[in-house]
């Protein structure tokens, strides 16, 4: 499935603003309602901040990729890097709330690696009919928005857009993805 928008740029803090702007344009072009767009931008910012802070050495920022796809009434965002993977950081300067925040904002979250062993955070947001009307990003006239979805408050009840198992609250967490394969997904809602 070809993403509707793909951004690739160096993983530097100042570049996160650019990504937020790009998602602002995407939201306006697809008439995504403001509340949902705020959630999307916040979740994407958190995921990108994690890449900037944790994925690479300070003096050698590596690549950061963000992909957005609108299909079947949902917006799927993948944030990808070439770092060592997601693992607990006891010495992290932050509060450690990034992934739980993403999970609370998105309908589903998956953490893992793609076929090229790049670290991925995959988030899905429902485009709710009556609140946000999404146009077809590929230029057609059909509306991509559907009803019936609600953003799960705990981020754990949604289904995965790409067919993988969605992250679920309360499941046994497998921490750390260094060396993990495509199916090694960890629970982002579990405290680290």
């Amino acid at each position, binding site marked *: 499935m*070809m*993403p*509707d*928008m*793909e*951004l*690739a*740029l*160096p993983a*530097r803090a*100042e*570049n996160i*603003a*650019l990504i937020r*702007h*790009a998602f*602002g*344009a*995407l939201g*306006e*072009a*697809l008439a995504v309602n403001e509340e949902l767009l705020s959630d999307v931008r916040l979740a994407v910012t958190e995921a990108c901040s994690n890449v900037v802070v944790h994925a690479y050495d300070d003096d050698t920022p590596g690549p950061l990729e963000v992909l957005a796809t609108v299909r079947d009434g949902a917006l799927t965002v993948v944030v990808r890097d070439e770092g060592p993977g997601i693992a607990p950081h006891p010495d992290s300067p932050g509060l450690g709330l990034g992934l739980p925040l993403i999970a609370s904002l998105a309908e589903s979250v998956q953490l893992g690696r793609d076929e090229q062993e790049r670290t991925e955070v995959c988030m899905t947001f429902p485009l709710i009919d009556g609140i946000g009307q999404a*146009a*077809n*990003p*590929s*230029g*057609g006239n059909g509306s991509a928005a559907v009803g019936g979805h609600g953003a799960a408050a705990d981020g754990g009840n949604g289904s995965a857009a790409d067919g993988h198992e969605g992250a679920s609250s309360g499941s046994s967490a497998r921490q750390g993805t260094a060396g993990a394969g495509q199916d090694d997904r960890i629970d982002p809602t579990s405290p680290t």
Partner: protein
Amino acid sequence: MSEAVKPEPDPSSNPAPIGRVSLRVASGPLAGPVLGRVASMVLARASCPLDRFDDALILCDAISAYAPAHVRDSHLSYTLTAQERAVELRVGELRPGGAAGLLEDAKLPNVGNVIERYSEQRRVEQAKDGDGEELVLTIPFA
């Protein structure tokens, strides 16, 4: 004797360049708005003056408007690279002859060619995958 305190550099006085930004977008309603926002950020971080900033956005609008008719498939790709007093814009995934078609379409009555007016050093390059071509142009600041 107290040690001299080195002042913190003011990040706003000399912003770090964004570096190379690659954008790939479906050639529909997303193409124009997303390119405009991304180009705005790259230009701003490259310290583009305000008058040239407007010109650059007109150029981006023109490319977004006319390029979809000349794409190889369903997507457009843009690569923006900050240079010394300029930003290089690479418009990709054009079909063979698409770059010339894009330049031809940008001619407006009583205005002239919008792309040629607002850019310099235009050239057509073969796409890296060998299929199709890219229009490479420079948006100058001075």
